[in-house]
């Protein structure tokens, strides 16, 4: 029997409620079992309890999720991945999430997701069954609506981010197009910036860089776009 992920679901629900409160859309992706993503989207769009507000949620198709998010997600949106904690496609999108300005939640079963991804993780354990996954997102939906009934918890100040190289302000950026020039267009927190590449050299499309004061100060390993 899989243990109840109470604390993780509560944290994920509060994050999600705060994002919805600020205008987010929820993007759901379940690459191996796409029906989970559809089921979650319908829970939020068409609530089972009459009178609950309809909240914007989308089921991403199994293929092409990264490209759709890059094009269509807005700063402040939420990405909810459902699947194995070692799914490479999920890890790749979560690595890019700060550049696109979206917050990731990883509802994982089977293998445990690695630490330090920046995602809010709800891990159901190695023996989770399909019904456990369904129960987890039903509870996520329900707890999110409970948070809405406590408006005092919904407002939060922006925490910002910190550059690991200099402990000062730094932001993850995704290079838009390959370049060997001194500058590139880079997506930072969902907005395009002109960034100086003098310190990092030529870049491939999709490479992730740390941007500090308009300058890319380092590349992040293993992040070229497939």
């Amino acid at each position, binding site marked *: 029997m899989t243990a109840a992920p109470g604390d993780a679901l*509560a944290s994920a629900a*509060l994050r999600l409620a705060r994002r919805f409160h600020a205008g987010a859309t929820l993007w759901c992706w379940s690459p191996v079992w796409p029906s989970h993503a559809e089921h979650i989207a319908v829970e939020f769009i068409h609530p089972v309890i009459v009178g609950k507000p309809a909240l914007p949620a989308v089921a991403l198709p199994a293929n092409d999720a990264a490209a759709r998010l890059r094009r269509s997600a807005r700063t402040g949106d939420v990405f909810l991945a459902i699947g194995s904690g070692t799914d490479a496609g999920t890890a790749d999108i979560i690595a890019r999430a700060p550049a696109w300005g979206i917050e990731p939640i990883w509802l994982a079963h089977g293998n445990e997701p690695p630490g330090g991804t920046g995602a809010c993780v709800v891990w159901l354990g190695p023996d989770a*069954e399909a*019904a456990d996954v369904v129960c987890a997102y039903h509870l996520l939906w329900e707890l999110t609506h409970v948070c809405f009934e406590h408006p005092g918890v919904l407002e939060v100040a922006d925490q910002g981010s910190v550059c690991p190289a200099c402990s000062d302000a730094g932001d993850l950026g995704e290079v838009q197009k390959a370049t060997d020039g001194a500058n590139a267009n880079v997506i930072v927190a969902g907005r395009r910036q002109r960034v100086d590449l003098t310190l990092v050299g030529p870049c491939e499309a999709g490479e992730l860089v740390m941007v500090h004061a308009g300058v890319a100060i380092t590349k992040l390993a293993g992040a070229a776009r497939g």
Partner: protein
Amino acid sequence: MAEATGFLYPFLDAAPDDPAALLGDLSRSAVEKWEVSVALRRTTVEDLEGDLAATADAMATLVAAGGRVLAFGNGGSAADAEAFVQSCASGPEPVPAVSLAADPAVLTALANDIGVDAIFARQIAAHGRSGDVAVAFSTSGGSSNVIAALDQARSAGLLTIGIVGYGGGALRTHVHHCLAVHSDSVHRIQEAQTAVASTLVGAVSRRLEERGP
């Protein structure tokens, strides 16, 4: 707090708008409901043991003779039908299956041109052959378009199976095999339906494997 979910969270009525206190309450509530879900799934599958075996026997016999599964449902049950069809392909011996809830072009064409009551029945008329198996998912057991499709299926010679909540609802009398969950929570019912569906696919697949080629 607002009235709509007050009955679900009576203990939150007095909770302040303090995130830490709220998180504690949410976590306790999630654990309680999780345990209710696990217990309902276990008792449902145990109580349905004989019905599941009879349903799996009938399905396996038809599938072995060339029959195909047609699965459908509305909303979350549409997603459950799609998951059922996908799991049909992933057992030790694959079960041929088609989801009638997967194609928005088909569903919106039928809903717009004929009406929502026709969205599954019309597809049963197109796909269904004698010896096929119609598997309906309905949390309420009262969806008129699901019942219309089951009636269409039965008259076309299909075996009809309902994976249903609220003890079977109105749908109960429209199927050969009714696998019913007894609960008054839509979400707990759907979770138990998922467990029932997984058990059924596994049982059919094992029977096909035992039969051999």
